[in-house]
């Protein structure tokens, strides 16, 4: 049985100027110890997806879905209850997720306390201290005893993010949702944190939803990839395959625009224009190099192509 | 919306009535000050003392038989004038000192801010008392006292805004374009700073009126026989609660205007937040 099953998830934000569809009919499954990448740019809805699955959506958002089942528990009736079930989220900016007035050790203790309560274990300071040290070592922090006694502002960005991961692990989550966790980090620190994620996933048999705009980062850690554009899934498949042989024009454009050569070798291929709401038919068609008349007639269905799902009229004639 | 109506009504009336009063003073025709009013606000009338509110006297009469409603209307320009002076003055001085402190930093910042701290430390009441004991009582001295006490808060507000804007890269770009410090302040700091402070000083208008009424209530502002809302409330206390209208009616007017200003300020903040 899959760890997480999501069927036709849609999220709409209401505001004084009308409503905006942030996500439209997103469906996917996630297995144990699998890392699913959600790749998209601004306006794709990827952050909304993260918030929706962690039960952190604003009250102005309406969430609709046919099914959201996590570990066999139906979450649809009360999505906020997901927060007690072993889903934890790691954010892009670790500094604003850490309490500036508490020492690191107390923040980790709090995480441990929450877990003990959830799993019915008893909490003891001594045990907690030992565990905190273990966790810091697991995320490869140098001088863990020293770091425990420090405050967040005394740590570097890389250390803060590792502490966040340690706190997440203290909760023994079955699913970790990471929203751009390495975007704000230096290149070398990013590589270190990615390898920590990889180890942790393997060692703890934890599943991960890894949200990023960076395809190269996604290729390092993800087993499968979902490509989001305009709040809809455009392509789903095994990471290696999607990145080596993209089928959807948007994915092709994304991969093509990554600089890989020098300027003498010619201009980079780019995707023309930029994202905007309120497009008729296929939401990517105004920017698509392969656009045809049929693209405006409606939103194409997701077509199954060699174990991949692609939402493009070039692969199948049905509309939603 | 309600706030806007109340405030506009208040200031529009004050403008008209105030102009008439000034004109009357200039032409030595005091009557001009009350031609629009139901009654002469200074005219005592022994037969009509302490009459309750009625159709002929909307807010009743005071202990000298003067119509309270007319006195309230007559006093309106005073508070309007004071509120505008203090707030405008506070903004002007605060902007000058605060924006330059935030933008230039260093010695300017230190000097300006220590000056601000100095004036911030004065309790308004004590300052007003001191000034009045030295120079004498009067509406104008109370105004000066309030001005001195009011600007430091604005200086702080503007400095915070300046610090925020200074971090913006378009300031660096302006420097690279060769603009001088003051040109940059004028072009890039004044407008957003005013925007941010706009809703605050709208609410502040109400605060000033309230405070000035308190000063007058304590006898430090407008002197009799000139009416002022605060002094009227004070005099009315002697007759409370039997002849309640004497204090309560001017009190209600003060409250309504202050709340109106607060509502307007709130609404402005929402509007501006939506715009940017």
């Amino acid at each position, binding site marked *: 049985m899959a760890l997480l099953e999501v069927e036709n998830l849609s999220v709409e934000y209401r505001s004084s100027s009308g409503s905006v569809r942030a996500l439209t009919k997103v469906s996917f499954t996630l297995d144990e110890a699998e890392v699913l990448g959600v790749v998209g740019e601004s306006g794709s809805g990827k952050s909304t997806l993260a918030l929706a699955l962690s039960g952190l959506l604003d009250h102005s958002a309406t969430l609709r879905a046919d099914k959201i089942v996590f570990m066999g528990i139906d979450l649809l009736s009360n999505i906020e209850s997901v927060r007690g079930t072993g889903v934890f989220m790691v954010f892009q900016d670790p500094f604003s997720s850490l309490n500036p007035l508490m020492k690191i050790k107390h923040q980790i203790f709090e995480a441990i306390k929450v877990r003990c309560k959830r799993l019915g274990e008893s909490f003891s300071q001594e045990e907690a201290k030992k565990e905190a040290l273990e966790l810091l070592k697991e995320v490869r922090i140098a001088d863990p005893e020293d770091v425990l006694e420090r405050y967040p502002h005394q740590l570097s960005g890389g250390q803060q993010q590792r502490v966040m991961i340690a706190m997440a692990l203290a909760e023994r989550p079955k699913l970790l949702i990471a929203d751009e966790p390495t975007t704000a980090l230096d*290149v*070398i620190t*990013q590589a270190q944190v*990615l390898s920590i994620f990889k180890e942790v996933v393997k060692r703890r048999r934890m599943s991960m939803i890894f949200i990023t705009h960076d395809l190269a980062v996604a290729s390092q850690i993800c087993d499968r990839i979902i490509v989001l554009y305009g709040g809809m899934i455009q392509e789903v498949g095994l990471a290696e395959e999607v*990145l080596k042989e993209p089928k959807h024009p948007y994915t092709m454009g994304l991969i093509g625009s990554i600089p890989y050569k020098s300027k003498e070798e010619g201009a*980079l291929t780019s995707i023309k224009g930029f994202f905007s709401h309120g497009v008729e038919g296929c939401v990517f068609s105004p920017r698509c190099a392969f656009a045809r008349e049929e693209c405006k007639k409606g939103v194409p269905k997701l077509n199954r192509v060699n174990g991949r799902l692609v939402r493009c009229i070039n692969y199948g004639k049905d509309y939603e | 919306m309600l706030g806007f109506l109340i405030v506009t009504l208040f200031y529009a009336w004050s403008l008209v009535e105030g102009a008439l009063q000034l004109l009357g003073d200039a032409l030595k025709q005091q009557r001009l000050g009350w031609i629009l009013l139901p009654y002469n606000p200074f005219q005592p009338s022994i037969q009509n003392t302490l009459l309750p509110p009625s159709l002929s006297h909307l807010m009743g009469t005071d202990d000298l038989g003067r119509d309270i409603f007319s006195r309230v209307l007559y006093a309106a320009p005073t508070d309007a004038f004071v509120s505008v002076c203090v707030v405008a003055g506070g903004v002007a001085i605060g902007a000058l000192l605060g924006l330059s402190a935030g933008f230039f930093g260093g010695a300017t910042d*230190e000097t300006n801010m220590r000056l601000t701290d100095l004036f911030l430390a004065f309790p308004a009441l004590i300052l007003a008392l001191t000034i009045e004991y030295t120079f004498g009582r009067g509406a104008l001295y109370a105004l000066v006292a309030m001005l001195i006490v009011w600007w430091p808060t604005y200086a702080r507000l503007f400095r915070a805004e300046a610090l925020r804007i200074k971090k913006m890269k378009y300031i660096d770009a302006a420097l690279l374009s*060769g603009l001088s410090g003051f040109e940059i302040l004028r072009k890039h700091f004044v407008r957003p700073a005013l925007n941010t402070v706009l809703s605050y000083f709208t609410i502040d208008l109400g605060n000033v009126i309230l405070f000035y009424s308190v000063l007058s209530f304590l006898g430090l502002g407008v002197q009799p026989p000139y009416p002022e809302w605060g002094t009227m409330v004070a005099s009315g206390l002697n007759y409370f609660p039997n002849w309640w209208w004497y204090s309560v009616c001017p009190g209600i007017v003060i409250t309504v205007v202050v709340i109106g200003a607060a509502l307007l300020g709130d609404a402005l903040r929402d509007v501006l937040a939506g715009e940017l």
Partner: protein
Amino acid sequence: MNEQFLVVKDVVKSFTVGKRSLLERILRKKVQTFNAVDHVSLSANKGETVAIVGESGSGKTTLGRLIVGLEKPDAGDILVDGKRVEYIAQRPENRGRLQMVFQDPSSSLDPYMSVEECVSEPIAKSALKKEEIKQKVVEALRLTGLDSSVLKRRTRELSGGQKQRVAIARAIVSDPQLIVLDEPTSALDVSIQAQILNLLVELQKLKRFTYVLITHDVKVARYLADSIAVMYLGKLVEHGPVKEVLSQPLHPYTQALIEAAPKIGAHSQVSVEGEPPSFLRLPKGCRYEPRCKFAMEVCKTQYPPETFVKNRRVWCYLYSA
């Protein structure tokens, strides 16, 4: 290399740790300082792009600001076209000579101003008449791919990519001699990044701009730059032609940077542990030594001297005689 257009000579820039109060200033209390840019020298030819690559704390941003005149060097000289760079150009002939494009498009344009007001700022005080200024603005916008319909729009209404184009238009409207690009595409969506990079190359070909590109992204440096200078904790560690440096990095830090950068289809290596030390506790010798897998005894003694290997400069004891 002859006729160096940009010359950075032994530049030092130090900052104090923490703020000093008025009292401390009066008492002239000693403060701790550190060198964000520590004796850096480099040069570039006209019409070329030199990339300054490093991570946070490397001093690359400070160096960029020094070159453009937003910061004043505490020691050393910076010359562009033979003339010394003045701290924030005040003199008319220097106005707009050096320009900068910033990383975050949202904070690099005044949200209260219109596009026309923004782009005309560098030439607003020049001797030109109003129509001439407007003409130059329209031309600059056209070169960056925007048409005159955006002139009256508020900058806050534009998308990220459009804002960055406006920022570039503002940078070129005064016909600068040199433009410092500080992470010009890092804050943009991937699909927009390529558009902007193409644009920058086109403009350079057309107008022979000299670019100083500051970036942490090796891929962007590879595409845009002719030469690359790698910085670590305020010092240069390697400097040479971009293709050679990136295909055969000599300095262990450069190697680590390149290995760590994620690439599609290849697993990035992270062969380095730990993080850079704080500026207040720098090693006496080579600053990279604590993390370097090739570290030797001599590395701890003194900062390695500048060594020339082929047409590159390296600061590493592995290569010094």
